[in-house]
């Protein structure tokens, strides 16, 4: 379904993403890990089209989406939802409007600019909010919500797009552990219940291990690991993060306290 071949992006002479290739079949939950600057965000932005690729192909069901421009690129974006670390909602607009933004591409510019949303769209947005448990917040301004609620609005916007792929760029990095879990659980549920492919950049190993079907490790723009979560040993992690021997993953953990014991156990087993 998704086939990335030698995707490369240069910034100046530096390669942010360097000949990345991998294939994903079916509705997998793929986690991408790697330290800061490894190229995770750029890769996701290339898939969505926010950052054009310098070279290489991103094939979705056989069509190269990396070469699209203009209306065709926007049409692809409308099928490829993106969730950001900082939520990237329109803060001064209400929650429903923010969710409706998911289908901007499918309604006429004039209609959307004049706020002439069809009733059916509004009801669908409400239904999605309800499913994510934040229907009560519908009339509030996005900026009035907590971080976790805002991220769920962002997910609702993504669902509104009815996307084939959901890209999530560190979706829980700005959240407290409590909210982080809710958001990750939501993403997982969508992945499982709706059968949508989710690709998430994550910066904590424990999250990757708990939620992903497959983990890709990046370092300096290249894929240095590609395997099952279970194959993610400390040695591999050290390799990915370029850390030395006193690497301690708990320093970067965002797991909520009640879960730490389970995690610690898991970590102990893995690091043994």
């Amino acid at each position, binding site marked *: 379904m998704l086939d990335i071949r030698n995707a490369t992006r240069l910034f100046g002479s530096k390669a942010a993403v360097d000949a990345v290739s991998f294939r994903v079949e079916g509705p997998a939950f793929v986690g991408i890990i790697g330290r800061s600057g490894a190229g995770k965000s750029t890769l996701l932005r290339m898939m*969505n089209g*926010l950052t054009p690729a310098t070279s290489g192909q991103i094939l979705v069901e056989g069509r190269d989406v990396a070469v699209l421009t203009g209306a065709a*690129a*926007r*049409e*692809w*974006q*409308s099928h490829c*939802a*993106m969730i*950001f670390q*900082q*939520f*990237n*909602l*329109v*803060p*001064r*607009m209400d929650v429903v409007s923010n969710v409706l*933004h*998911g*289908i*901007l*591409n499918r309604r006429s*510019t004039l209609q*959307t*600019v004049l706020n002439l949303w069809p009733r059916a769209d509004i009801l669908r947005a409400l239904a999605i909010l309800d499913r994510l448990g934040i229907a009560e917040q519908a009339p509030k301004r996005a900026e009035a919500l907590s971080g976790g609620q805002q991220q769920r609005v*962002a997910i609702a*916007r993504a669902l509104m*797009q009815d996307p084939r792929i959901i890209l999530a760029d560190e979706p829980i990095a700005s959240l407290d552990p409590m909210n982080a879990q809710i958001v990750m659980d939501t993403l997982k549920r969508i992945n499982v219940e709706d059968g949508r492919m989710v690709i998430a950049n994550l910066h904590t190993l424990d999250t990757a291990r708990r939620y992903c079907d497959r983990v890709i490790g990046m370092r300096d723009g290249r894929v240095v690991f590609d395997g099952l979560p279970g194959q993610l040993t400390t040695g591999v992690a050290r390799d990915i993060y370029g850390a030395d021997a006193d690497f301690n993953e708990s320093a970067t953990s965002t797991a909520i306290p009640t879960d730490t014991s389970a995690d610690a156990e898991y970590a102990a087993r893995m690091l043994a």
Partner: protein
Amino acid sequence: MALAEIRDDYLGLVRRRRIYGGLLIVVFVAMMVSGFRLADDRNAGGFWQGLHQIGDFSAALVTEAAQKWTNLPGHMLAAVPALIETLNIALVATLIGCLAGTALSLAATRGLARWPRLVPVARRLSDIFRAIPEIVIALVLIFILGGGPVPAVIAIAVHTAGAMGKLFSEVNENVDLKPVEGLASVGATWSQRIWLGVIPQVAPNYLSYSLLRLEINIRASAILGFVGAGGIGYELRNAMTFGQGKFDQAAAIFLLLFATIVVVDQISGLARHRLTHGAPA
């Protein structure tokens, strides 16, 4: 650092500062004094010779207006259509100018521009629009379009577009780009990104600046009337330059115009206060 060293450094600093400061003051005072003397010299009447007559014109005007005070309400009423025309000129010009200024500012802001290559062009354009005095455009347009409000509207609108283009683009520079990127990721067009992602953020600032501009433009449209572009300024000038005999009319028109300006200033001041400090609870 030893105290001696600090001392020498600081004394050096003081010396330099005194020299520069002294020089600056001397140069500035010299410029003011020689500038004043030059202007005084180039003027037909001298400053000191004319000073005692400074109130003569106003005295003549006030005396006549006071004598014929019964005429004032009539003159005021007669000037109301011209006043409405002036207000319309200002309002239409502000509207058009601010809309054009918005477009210019969006084209001139890096990161928001539809055509990033044209950013410098848009900037220079708004500089030039801002630099051309309204009177220049108005006079040229009067030649082409004939007298009346439209040349004034265009002249003021062009200047407003330039001024707002600059002010608005300063506002735009501080815009939070996250929502814009969020909209871009769902495949929104440029207009959708700007309308939904940028405009809501900048609207209060834009409105506040536009109101301030409206105040300025009412004055400007009255002034353009002075050079024949219609409105109340034109009536005022005709009455004032006729001189003795129509000073009552001049006073009436002036009072009307002045009262309008004060009222608009107050209203827009209140509205701007609400925009920047929020509505009173």
